[in-house]
């Protein structure tokens, strides 16, 4: 993340941040190959000791199991784990320039920020929030709302909400995932679509007067970046906040990010020999790898 030397991103808490520091050229929107393994660490967001969770009356009523035996109702664990699994998928995707973090208060709300590195919106840093319906994954597609309405045909100039639904007309579980929404949010900044805009002005400008559009975009980007250091809109311990670069704080954090090696939580458990394998790749035969088998 050698993007902008003037600020750095940090979460309020000590939570380890996944470090996809890889820079990807803006155009490579392809989903990172799944094979790439992130170092990121997945875990439930740690819960600060003193922070009292906001409690809310639970809605009543349990979903009745669907008739045919499939489970339409997902218990709390399922919902939470489903979201966790989604988050894991996001990490695996290594989306370029996109960072998200679930809220402390609700697993259904994720904070995020997107860095645009090329194109019209170059240097844009847009914070956003993802809202996931609580009947996920059976509900509508998640919403994605920019903190500051970006000047863009597909972003509502008032609410800042991105028109996600056009890409996910029907949210199909098992097929649609939250990382796709994030990916989509990134894509719109590189490939402008003006049909059925939420921001007609932007759409028209883009069609009719690109120059003016561009200048408006630049203004918008500037505006967004000027609010970068604002307090997070949401008062949440896990909200993403930015602060000016402070070597005392950030150098070390950066260092840790780059050197972080993920290990099992409980690594001390056993000096176990690990990674035992003498299988020669491709051979599928035990002890095919090596050399000196005992001669009989």
């Amino acid at each position, binding site marked *: 993340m050698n993007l902008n030397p003037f600020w750095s991103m940090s979460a309020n808490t000590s939570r380890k941040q996944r470090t996809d520091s890889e820079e990807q050229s803006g155009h490579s929107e392809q989903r990172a190959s799944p094979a790439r393994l992130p170092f990121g660490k997945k875990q439930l967001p740690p819960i600060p000791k003193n922070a009292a969770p906001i409690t809310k*009356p639970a809605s009543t009523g349990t979903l009745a199991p669907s008739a045919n035996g499939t*489970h339409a109702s997902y218990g*709390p664990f399922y*919902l939470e*784990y489903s979201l966790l699994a989604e988050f894991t998928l996001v990490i695996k995707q290594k989306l370029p320039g996109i960072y998200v973090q679930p809220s402390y208060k609700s697993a259904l709300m994720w904070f995020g920020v997107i860095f645009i590195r090329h194109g019209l919106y170059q240097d844009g840093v847009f914070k956003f929030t993802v809202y996931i319906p*609580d009947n996920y994954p059976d509900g*509508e597609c998640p919403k994605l709302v920019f903190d500051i309405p970006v000047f863009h045909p597909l972003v509502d100039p008032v609410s800042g909400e991105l028109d996600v639904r056009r890409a996910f007309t029907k949210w199909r579980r098992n097929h649609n995932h939250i990382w796709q929404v994030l990916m989509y949010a990134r894509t719109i900044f590189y490939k402008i679509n003006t049909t059925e805009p939420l921001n007609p002005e932007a759409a028209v400008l883009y069609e009719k007067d690109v120059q003016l559009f561009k200048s408006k975009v630049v203004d918008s980007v500037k505006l967004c970046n000027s609010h970068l250091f604002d307090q997070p809109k949401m008062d949440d311990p896990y909200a993403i906040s930015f602060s000016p670069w402070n070597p005392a704080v950030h150098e070390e954090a950066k260092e840790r990010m780059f050197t972080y090696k993920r290990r099992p939580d409980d690594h001390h458990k056993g000096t176990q020999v690990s990674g035992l394998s003498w299988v020669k790749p491709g051979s599928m035969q035990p002890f095919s790898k090596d050399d000196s088998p005992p001669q009989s």
Partner: protein
Amino acid sequence: MSWLSRLNPRGPGSRTGRSAAPSGPCTADPETCLMVFENHWRQVSWVLEQQEPSSSSDDLTAVRNHTDQMLCLLAEERPAESAEGGAAPMGPILELVVTENILERLVQWHLRRGLDSDSQGALLKLFEMLIGQSQQQPLLQHTAVLHPLLRLLGACADPDLGCPLALENSLVLLLNQICVSMARQPVVLEMLFRAAPAQQGSTNLLIFSLLVPFIHRDGAIGQQARDALLLVMAASASNEAVARYIAENSYFCPLPPPEAVSRASSQVLATGLSALYSSLPRKIEVRGDDWHALRREDWMSVSSLVLFMNSLEFCNAVVQIAHPLVRSQLLDYLHNGFLVPVMGPALHKSSVDEMIASTAYLDLFLRSVSETSLLKTFLRFILLHRHDNDTILDTLLTRISSNSRLCMVSLSLFRTLLSLNCEDVMLQLVLRYLLPCTHVMLSQRQAIRVTDLYGKSADKFLSLIPECCRLNAASSAERDEDGAFWGKVVNSPSIESPAPPRPSTPSRLAFFIRQQSSGGGPGGGGPSTPTSTEPPQSGASHPPCPDSPMHQQLANTECLDWDSGYLEYLKDSRQGIEICSWACRDWSAPYDGENPSPNVAAPPPPPPTSNPTMAMFPEHFSLQQGGSGSTPPPGQQRAAVVAVARSEWSSSERDSGEWDVTIGKNNCISLTPRSKKRSLQREEVLPKPLPRLVPSSSSSSSTSSSSSSSSSSSSSSSATPLSSTHAASSPAPHNPTSAVTVGYQAMCNGMAGQEDGCSDNRDRGLEVKKVKRDLGEQQYLDENANQNGSLVTCSSQGCAALPQSIFNDSEMSDAKSPRPNQIPSQGPVAPLVSDAKPPAGDASKPCLASSDLPEANQAQQSVESLIRELLEQAPGEPQLPGDSNGQGISIEAFTQELRELEDRVRERGRAACQQEETARECLSSERRQPQQEEEQQPPSVPEPKPPTGDTKGDGPALVFGSPARPLNKPASQPYTGPFMVVLFAKLENMLQNSLYVNILLTGIVAQLACYPQPLLRSFLLNTNMVFQPSVKSLIQVLGSVKNRIEAFAASHEDFPAMLKKAQQYLVARGKVDWADSPAAVPNLRRSDSLVKSRKPSLGELILRHTNSPTRARHAAQLALAHVRDGGQSLHSALFKGGAGAGSLEKQAEALRVKNAVYCAVVFCEFLKELAALAQEHAVTLPFPHSQEAEE
């Protein structure tokens, strides 16, 4: 490294004290010392110079006295003031020693006059003192010191002179000192290396050759020798020449070996192990029925084992530090000199005792070895070495299906193997069978890699928690206090979706975490908004709500411990998966159904028809009972075992066992999961009595025969057993000797008796299924018997012997395993039987009964035979052929029940008889021709039969054709491998397994389920996956267990109470002990020492919420061993009066109930664990290859 660190304090350490504070005279000024020294030397040299060595003792004494003084002075001398910088010049005394070659002359003089042991000892001590105490000057670097020393040592190595026993201590101590010096001054090693050859000829490194004989010694000597050798090895690791020398020249070669002159060193180690192994106890006497593995405290008191372990540890240390050349040579010898020639045969001994012992030893060795290359040698041996055509692995696999102790020991071994996270092991055990992906429907292949994002599998697992086990939860349900609602979107812009009311709060997870950590009480979180709607599923809930555990935890204080814990399972699962995937990160392939490609994958070995040479123990296989649950036993008569047995059995019939077991002549067993279709077919087909191995087996060793027969019988289930019985009975002389044999035969007889006239083979078809059932039960009975030594004792009439060593019992039971088969019908009897083992003599009778006698007679006989069996069970007793009755067992009690059973059997038998007349013939001669059955069966079916071994046509075929399975299934037949098949079979039989077996068993399955490889993960945990019909899935197995539990619960009114008691008891125990063993996480590698300190606690098993479940269970397993009498006390706690009073059948019934109740407890926990694992897999990130990112 413990070795090296241990070394340090020893040699140098102890000395430093002295040298650090040089005392008295020695501190005198150097000049004085020199003068004194010279004075002494003058006297000595006068003696030395006399031409002919005087034999006068005066001379000797004088020389000795002077020498003492001289060497003292030499040892204490400090080097001369170093002339700035350079090496400190020698002190004056040393200089004199060098120039005059004093030591050499001294030694020469001694040698010339003939070295008696007295002066030899004196010299050894002198040198030892010299080297040990001379901290100031590097004496050994001077040839004037080194050579005489070598000369002296040479004398010790001289075959003529040798080293008297009395001097061994001195010698080893001296050698040890030399090695310490060498380790400190590598130069010395080179000097030795250079100097020695010249003087000593082939045995250059005298020091090695002198040390080697001691390395396997007991006590301090051995320790010093090993330490010394290790030091040399360590030094040699950095010296190519020395290493090569060690490796290529047998300078270790101490022994006489003529041409074996070469490479003796390693050989010595390996052969030493072999020798030591041979002195290990052939039989392990254990008291607890829960015993399943050797822990440190188990073997510390067995000197031969201590000796062996020391040597093994030494090998491990050598491998660790020695030069690669030396290492590979050592490993070589270990493999070819110990594992193959000694361990291999040991594992294949025919007696159950020996099998148990050798398996436990192997397990211990595996756990003790820490060096990767040494471990590899062991694993290679286990996986690839073939002993009589079967790999060690095959052999071990078959033992899982055996009864009781052998099963537990084997499971323990596999647990150890799995804990290694070794690709090669997993490949051989499971993955190679899954690689071709033939176990899934073609359309499902891509689903292999799919992760279950939405918890459907977890949901499915939890839904299998039997209704009857959720009782506790209900009450707590209401209390649900729900605080945080993490799942709730806080500020979201209106979420329009009229989402159905959210079921419950996902936030609980976090909430509870917090609570736990803070120790806060329930409702800690904020305003509790009781979500009335959320009624914890437990109560009424149909679809099991996963979260219920949490609620309960809060609510129900009493049962809280018990019911809660899902969160712990999640945590534990995460950890387990992470550790596992971490450990697997360097595997050669992801095993995800694409890589390696299913098409490329070599076809896995066919079902085991040919492999396992080992005798099988039928019981295991017999399980079956599959969907029985559906039909709860009608009878509410809870008590009668018979009734239960019947019901089960009836249900079982419906299911048709899921597994077919085929036993080959060689006792090869093949397991074939049976498709439902098949089962149906089976029923139709008359099962032919399987040709029991009996004949052949019987001929061999009694034990083996018994085992084999038993296996066959069990496997084949009823039908087979009968046949076998016949065969065995008639031809086979009873081998009274082996209890096992007897037991089996007895069983067979029993069966026959039951069946009555019809019993002949005909019934078999019908009976087979039944048998399976029965077997299962029996098995359980056996286990029970094992568990309660006391009970057993009682039951076994005369067999006083039995009681104590559960071990024995277990063995017995193993052998008897067949009984279970018989038992089935005889429900009540069975237990008895298990307790008392029937004598072999029965076999003959049964045969008669079955075939010849009229029904009435038969019935009687059968009873008699049963009784005999009981009697015979007595361990030591020889079979009592006819007199069985006498033994004070109260038979009447169960006689009646038995009769009932028999009647039933008879009825069936008749029907069957009519149909199959032929069977008998078959028996004797061929033993079953499978053909009929085969014909009926679809060709494809040729399964490798699963253990259950219904009498499939295959079975017979196998029997005859032993190795080559004629009927082998077509290669195409999906087969998930013997390991999975055996595990599932055992699992299906959970209700009858003892608590300990179930703990081990579920632990292993859970361990398997931690593996991140999609092939394995999807096979075990993806409940949505569609497998080929012939492939049984875990969920199916669990479903059948669930049904059985429910059926059982339905037949026992007091089940809820018992369940609660069991839970509470276990929890309570756990609590008590948990406190002191919080950190005592058994280390897989070196568990022994850690565990040593812990207190036993059964309850840890269940106390999962406090600590991680897996760990708790693991701990419990270990701890269980401490509670030798745990089973009994538990039992009595649960069912008062069970142990003491009452007839045998009552006791047996009590055992059976106990097992079932504990099974229910373990089962529920197991489901939670599996659910948690399924969930965690979805959120686990893989680890990068180590090269890419690590170390």
